[in-house]
């Protein structure tokens, strides 16, 4: 029933008038004067694509553009085009293959496949441009209508949606050879631009401002009794930025950075250890019932014991203060990572392992190709928690032991009544902690492109 009408619309041969009429239906050529339109129609060669034919692939050289006369074609932009809508069905009156006209690209941005038997007009882009050289006014109008159409339909980054301008052919040609690095930069700029245009940064700023204002007003303006001894916003900032800080610590003093670096180093080591051991243990606990039965009860018994309770034993065992701090920092991260990893393995639908085994994977291959990647989303959730927890525990550990680090700063400043320094330590800790967990998240997104894209499809 679907194959018997494969001949419809084929072979009659469109004459010049019919081609011109079709062009008139398209967005870019709608307003072209009749005489010019007829000459464009003469450039247009009619072709028929049986269903399933690929017209062109992403990355191919782009020489021609196409107008659809009948049938339909699926037009799928590659992800690098950064369009808001990647896949589109085009039909009579639509124009595809406009990459041939873009000022920065001469490669196909999309892959197009005929969904049904489809009749098209092929127009050579170079010939079209040559034609417009003699009628620059119409040419520029058509090109700008192209740009509008592209932007309306696909929301491409501006630098991609720009068509050549006819008047300055030479300029356009040199523009077409923008080096890759430059277009990357443009892409980055484009994304940054989008971010700035979105409500996100403003909400973020509003959030911070609200907290800071509350702080400022409660301490310095209203002088609420409860906040009597609390250092004010202005005082802290002045101290923080002072070249000659009253309490000895500011962005201008080298110790400030020593503390930060020492803390980062400790967290880094502890986090790496926790990740290596936690992910391994978690994977095996999830994968093997035997391992789980051995380990999990012990694990669950130790997990609720708070870090501070471990301090005496840790000091006895490790003696060396640095190792003690690292051990204490490690512990909670390790629990978070191991537990999340195990839950991640549990979360994997059994049919994936079954599918892998009936495709011939052995036990180890199932582990490698199903268990590990399947648990990855949970692992990274765990790692984000774990890095936060590491900072958390670090402060506790540094309060007990060691002579540097942000936790140490906070603790000693308290005993020595340097209140603004406490707040400086806290804010720095927060900022560094935020950065590290953002880095973990970025790494996760980088490793799990499939997930990023899947979520993007869900409109997130």
């Amino acid at each position, binding site marked *: 029933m679907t*194959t018997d009408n494969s001949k419809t619309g084929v072979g009659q041969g469109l004459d010049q008038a019919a081609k011109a009429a079709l062009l008139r239906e398209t967005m870019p050529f709608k307003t072209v004067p009749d005489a010019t339109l007829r000459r464009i129609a003469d450039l247009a060669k009619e072709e028929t694509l049986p269903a399933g034919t690929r017209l062109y692939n992403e990355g191919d050289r782009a020489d021609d553009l196409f107008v659809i006369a009948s049938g339909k074609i699926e037009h799928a932009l590659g992800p690098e085009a950064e369009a808001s809508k990647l896949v589109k069905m085009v039909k009579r009156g639509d124009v595809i293959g406009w990459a041939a006209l873009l000022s920065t690209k001469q490669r196909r941005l999309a892959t197009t496949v005929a969904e049904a038997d489809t009749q098209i007009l092929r127009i050579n882009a170079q010939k079209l441009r040559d034609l417009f050289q003699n009628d620059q006014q119409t040419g520029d109008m058509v090109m700008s209508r192209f740009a509008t159409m592209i932007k309306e339909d696909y929301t491409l980054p501006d630098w991609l949606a720009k068509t050549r301008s006819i008047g300055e052919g030479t300029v356009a040609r040199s523009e077409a050879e923008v080096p890759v690095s430059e277009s990357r930069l443009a892409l980055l700029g484009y994304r940054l631009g989008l971010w700035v245009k979105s409500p996100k940064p403003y909400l973020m700023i509003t959030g911070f401002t609200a907290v800071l204002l509350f702080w400022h007003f409660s301490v310095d303006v209203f002088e609420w009794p409860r906040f009597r001894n609390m250092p004010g916003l202005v005082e802290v900032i002045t101290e923080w930025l002072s070249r000659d800080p009253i309490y000895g610590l500011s962005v201008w003093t080298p110790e400030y950075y020593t503390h930060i670096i020492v803390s980062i180093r400790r967290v880094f080591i502890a986090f790496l250890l926790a990740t290596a051991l936690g992910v391994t243990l978690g994977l095996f606990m999830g994968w093997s019932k035997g391992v789980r039965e051995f380990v999990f009860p012990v694990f669950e018994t130790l997990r609720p014991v708070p870090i501070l309770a471990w301090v005496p034993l840790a000091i006895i065992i490790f003696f060396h203060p640095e190792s003690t701090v690292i051990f204490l920092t490690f512990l909670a991260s390790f629990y978070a990572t191991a537990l999340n990893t195990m839950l991640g393995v549990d979360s994997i639908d059994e049919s994936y392992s*079954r599918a*892998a085994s*009936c495709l011939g*994977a052995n036990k180890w291959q199932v582990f490698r*190709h199903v268990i590990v*990647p*399947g648990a990855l989303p949970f692992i990274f959730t765990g790692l984000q928690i774990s890095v936060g927890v590491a900072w958390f525990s670090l402060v506790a550990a540094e309060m007990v032991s060691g002579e540097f680090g942000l936790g140490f700063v906070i603790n000693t400043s308290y005993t020595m009544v340097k209140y603004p320094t406490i707040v400086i330590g806290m804010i720095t800790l927060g900022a560094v902690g935020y950065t590290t967990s953002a880095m973990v998240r970025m790494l996760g997104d980088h490793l799990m492109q499939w*997930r990023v*894209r899947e979520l993007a499809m869900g409109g997130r």
Partner: protein
Amino acid sequence: MSAVMNRNTQPSKYGATRGAIQIKNVDKIYDPEGAAVKAVDNCTLDIPAGEICMVVGPSGCGKTTLLNAIAGFHSITSGEITLDGELLCGPGKPQAEPGSDRVVVFQNGALFPWKTNLENVAFGPIVQGKMSKKEAYEKARSLMADAGLGRSERNYPGEISSGVRRRVEIVRALMNDPAVLLLDEPYRALDSLTKSVMHESLLETYYKNKVTIFFITHDLEEAIFLGHRVVIMTSRPCRPKKILEVDIPHPRDYNALTSTRFRELMDETMDAVHEEAVKAFEAGEKEG
């Protein structure tokens, strides 16, 4: 009867030389010690090589259990199952080894979301060490292109529609050159329009590679449209209640759906299935 004699002999009536499944007196009892649930009871079924065998039956009657036993996902309690005369599971070997000669397409789909469609399709031969990565990708590419899936190669399964996902999954199965395709309600979640496209594409694939298809469904129209035979199962524990020969010649297209013969077969199936569904319902009432 020997295993050797059955292999590489004459093509079956469907023109295939491998993929004959024999299920003999199979029982499956879940949890034999405790509250024993008998899911399959003395089930015997002979599927010739290259047949499209459609299995219908009330919900929870044990169809998936039977399919899983053939696939090797769990054991059987007694009886035996052979593939081309070779024992898959039976006395002394309660559970079959899962293998790429019997590939399953799952009800909810099981393309690995973390691999691109192409990587999914190429997965089988690569893990089996049958092909180099390069060869596997080449073959995967050409199979996908043949199936009209070329443009989804580089997408992840999460980015394509569920209909396309099913097609990719079937290509992934065919990539291994299986003797049998085991499909467990693969199109259940699809809308009827997509479903009809799927049916045509499945038949097209089948006409190209004559594999045996063991296809579980709840959709009687689907069962009759696709199948050479429709096996109607009893309510739990399941065993074939009635086997219907669908005497509408292949290749079929959608005109078959409107033929009188199709309607007659539908009525016949409907009666048998309805009877079992009522039994299952009443059994459920008693239990509840």
